[in-house]
């Protein structure tokens, strides 16, 4: 039974995406915080390890990767928090639309609002640590595959904590096992590129994982949300 007055899936997806991006833009101060955090953490590395070029060059890729990951973790808790508090999530769950698609759009909006600025600033972070210029494209590529994976995993976990009060530390604990493989493959690609070895295999693994996660994570997110809000 298709109701002509009921909006199509694409229309509803666009509505969610547009609303979340508008909200992110209205609170762009919050959007800048993870970027600022990443800058601060990266600038601490030379102080802690000494300004030796060779050493910094060796750790640059991994350090940027972990910094971006931590910065994303910082923003993760807020993914659905305000929606739960003001009741928008209930309205979303009652809408005549597949919840998984709606959650997928929310995760996409969150990725655009938090990860894209971080990816944009990543060359600067890498430059601060003297990452060789040849490795830069690989770093960006690795981030382009790794950050959506983290957003998708994070979306599922944030949905699980939807029924609880503040959950920052718990979220980190739950995310760690999930992000270990992501970090390993992303860093593996960087290490290979830095040594002049072929780096496409780990990136391909990340791409395969991303393709799977794009399909499965929104479904898991919707299921987790229904469990966590007890339905």
């Amino acid at each position, binding site marked *: 039974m298709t109701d002509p007055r009921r909006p199509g899936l694409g229309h509803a997806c666009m509505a969610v995406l547009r609303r979340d991006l508008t909200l992110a833009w209205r609170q762009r101060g919050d959007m800048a915080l993870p970027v600022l955090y990443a800058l601060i953490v990266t600038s601490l590395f030379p102080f802690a390890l000494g300004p030796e070029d060779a050493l910094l060059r060796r750790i640059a890729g991994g350090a940027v990767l972990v910094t971006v990951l931590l910065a994303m973790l910082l923003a993760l808790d807020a993914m659905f928090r305000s929606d739960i508090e003001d009741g928008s999530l209930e309205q979303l769950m009652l809408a005549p639309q597949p919840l998984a698609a709606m959650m997928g759009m929310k995760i996409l909006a969150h990725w655009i609002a938090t990860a894209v600025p971080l990816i944009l600033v990543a060359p600067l972070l890498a430059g601060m640590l003297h990452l060789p210029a040849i490795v830069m494209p690989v770093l960006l590529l690795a981030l382009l595959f790794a950050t959506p994976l983290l957003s998708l995993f994070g979306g599922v976990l944030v949905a*699980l904590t939807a029924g609880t009060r503040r959950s920052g530390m718990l979220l980190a604990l739950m995310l760690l096992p999930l992000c270990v493989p992501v970090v390993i493959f992303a860093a593996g690609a960087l290490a290979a590129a830095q040594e002049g070895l072929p780096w496409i295999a780990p990136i391909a693994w990340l791409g395969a994982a991303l393709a799977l996660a794009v399909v499965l994570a929104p479904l898991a997110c919707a299921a*987790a949300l229904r469990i966590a809000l007890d339905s």
Partner: protein
Amino acid sequence: MAKWIPLWLHKLSSPPVFYGFAGKLRPWAIALALILGAIGLYGGLVLAPPDYQQGDDYRIIFIHVPCAWMSLFIYAVMGVAAFIALVWRIKLAEIVAMASAPIGAAFTFITLVTGSLWGERMWGTWWTWDARLTSELVLLFLYLGVIGLYHSFEDRRQGARTAAFLALIGIINVPIVHFSVNWWNTLHQGSTIRLLGPSTMASSMIWPLLTMMAATKFYYIASLFGRTRADLLSLESGKDWVREIAEKEVRG
């Protein structure tokens, strides 16, 4: 309720029946765990000959290996219970899954500590980023995540179902982590020392090991039943059968 579940299993999932059943079996499980544990330890620490390479140091495997085995076994039990809890919404399965988590975390922790002690003697370092050790560490984090999520909910049943979902995610994750850490190790050419040599152990070493494995399993059953009984009482505290037990306790 699904029709194919045998009737006795269905009956057993009712809280008062399981409470009684677990209460009857628990003393036996404790006794078996203690006896087998004593025999296994005596066989392993006293009777088994020292290893020609490692001397007496290897004897820690009589604790380390059974615990490592249990850490995975309990996660599997927890995963099955979590699946049942989510699909059929059986209260007992929720309780079993959540009661298993701390026991599994304890076994994982013991595995890490004994592995670290052994590593110090064998490789001269407390910690190495070996694939198995790293996977075990990730397993500990998974357990802690499940426990933490469970306790962050005010409604315990809601917490149990949510944590059960996380446990299921973890089941998919464990092999991925193991695979990726293996890949990472070959990439970095680190210490690729195998924890166990090829399985050419003398039978005098094998039987204590197997006995210890049985002992840990009975300990798990005893501990699980104890925790489950306590949780059943507190979750069902308003029900008649709990009231009857309480009254019997007061009278007796």
